[in-house]
């Protein structure tokens, strides 16, 4: 298949995945909007008022970037893991496996679907956040690039989860037992400088900490960690997970007998 054919197959898969997000918008776009509204109401307005300021910002303003990124992470991951696993489970993944489209198209096509859903949800949550607080945007390039890269990283994470998943339970194990704790401990609701030294060092092992802080830097101009280290870590995860996805699909792990 020549490059033009490969791009056509990528466009077809990407479009198919985006259509899926739009077709089931009540499942994909509405729930995060409701959840995040509750977060802003309870943590921001009710509890946040008593907390006061953090890193020189109102608590609501401080947590808003983290909440936006949290919804992007959850939805990018969730979209690909459910789309790819249901295609595998119902066997229509075979439509792609029998076709001459290269493996990178399968990976990128699904990643695009996850990113579109994640970023759309991010946009919706940003809109909701603006009802409750202000988002000054310290550096637009950093804010946008970090959110896009993070979305790509977790779309690939969802893809790898789906590749290994054998039953529906396997689809929810990683989000529940790995992703949620890492997100909540990733500095969404607090600055790691509030933690004891040992916990601060431990937090540095959490990749989500770097993403949340890099995005917060883009929006508010404050970060617990060096922004360039954050970029390095995000790009390393992106490269590593992309390569791993390609290898797994090439070997047929979880998708070919």
């Amino acid at each position, binding site marked *: 298949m020549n490059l033009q054919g490969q791009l056509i197959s990528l466009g077809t898969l990407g479009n198919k995945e985006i259509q899926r997000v739009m077709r089931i918008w009540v499942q994909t776009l509405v729930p995060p909007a409701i959840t995040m509204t509750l977060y802003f109401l309870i943590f921001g307005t009710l509890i946040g008022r008593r907390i006061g300021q953090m890193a020189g910002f109102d608590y609501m303003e401080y947590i808003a970037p983290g909440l936006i990124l949290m919804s992007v992470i959850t939805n990018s991951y969730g979209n690909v893991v459910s789309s790819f696993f249901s295609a595998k489970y119902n066997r229509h993944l075979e439509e792609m496996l029998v*076709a*001459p489209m290269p493996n990178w198209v399968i990976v990128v096509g699904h990643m695009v679907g996850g990113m579109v859903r994640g970023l759309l949800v991010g946009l919706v949550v940003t809109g909701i956040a603006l009802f409750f607080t202000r988002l000054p945007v310290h550096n637009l390039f950093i804010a946008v690039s970090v959110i896009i890269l993070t979305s790509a990283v977790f779309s690939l994470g969802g893809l790898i989860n789906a590749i290994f998943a054998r039953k529906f339970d396997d689809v929810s194990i990683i989000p529940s037992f790995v992703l949620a704790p890492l997100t909540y401990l990733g500095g969404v609701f607090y600055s790691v400088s509030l933690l004891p030294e040992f916990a601060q060092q431990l937090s540095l092992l959490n990749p989500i900490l770097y993403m949340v802080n890099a995005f917060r830097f883009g929006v508010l101009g404050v970060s617990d960690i060096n922004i360039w280290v954050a970029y390095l870590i995000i790009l390393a995860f992106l490269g590593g997970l992309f390569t791993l996805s390609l290898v797994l699909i090439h070997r047929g792990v979880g998708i070919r*007998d």
Partner: protein
Amino acid sequence: MHALAIRNLVKTYANGVRALDGIDLAVAEGDFFALLGPNGAGKTTAIGIVTSLVNKTSGQVEVFGHSLDTDLAAAKSCLGVVPQEINLNQFDQLDNIVANQAGFYGVPRSEARRRAQEVLEQMQLWDRRDDIARNLSGGMKRRLMIARALVHKPRLLILDEPTAGVDIEIRRSMWEFLREINEQGTTIILTTHYLEEAEKLCRHVGIIDHGKIVANDRMTSILMKLHREIFVLTTREPVVALPLFDEFDVTLLNENELQVEITRNQDLNGLFRMLSGAGISVISMRNKSNRLEEVFFRLTERGGEKQAVQPIAARAS
């Protein structure tokens, strides 16, 4: 050139089951080929390997000269596959399913839409194009899978049990359609449990059992290997007492039906001469069972019967 060439193909699953034990198979371009075998014989595994859905353990597969090992994309471009199990996205619209499949083969969107209409019309599904796959009947889903397999105009179409669970009318129209596209140049490999279907449609037949090819020949040659055939004759008048026929093994099934076993060194003319001599008038005649079915059973069943057809197996190996 062979549409499909398989050499010493072996598949051992992770649980140790050896599904294919070194099969060799060649299907000529333009052929209509039946791949038969009992459940679990290895047919679907072989098709899975050819269509890249199953990883092989060893051996070579070439599709129109393109090796799956070195030229996979070109091999895949030549192939269309209709799997045994329904593998449709149940919540997607018919026209999207088919047009997307064309897109996966690199067909531009406008052309993909045009081709989707063409194949859906051929499969009499165009009126249902806006419906989702889940709402189709079993027969319609099978036709949709055929439409999807044809949308990129494959040179080799592989159908794994395409008419399973399909009513007689649709089955016959599928046969007609498959004959038509075969005449237009598409090579077809078919697996089926309806041996009548294979006998009616296919020019060559391969029989696989326990992961080995036990027969591979022209359909006519395979059928010639039958050492005996059993016919049922219907008589015009009731037969009260059956005369003694020295040369033929004739039994009375009921007052209007006789069963006759004919071996390869006997002929039907002699039988009819004897029947006429006995004053028995025959108005119709049929095989007691499908001829291919007879060969199939003999080749695949265990025990003494298999010995009777050993020459076929020996020749194929």
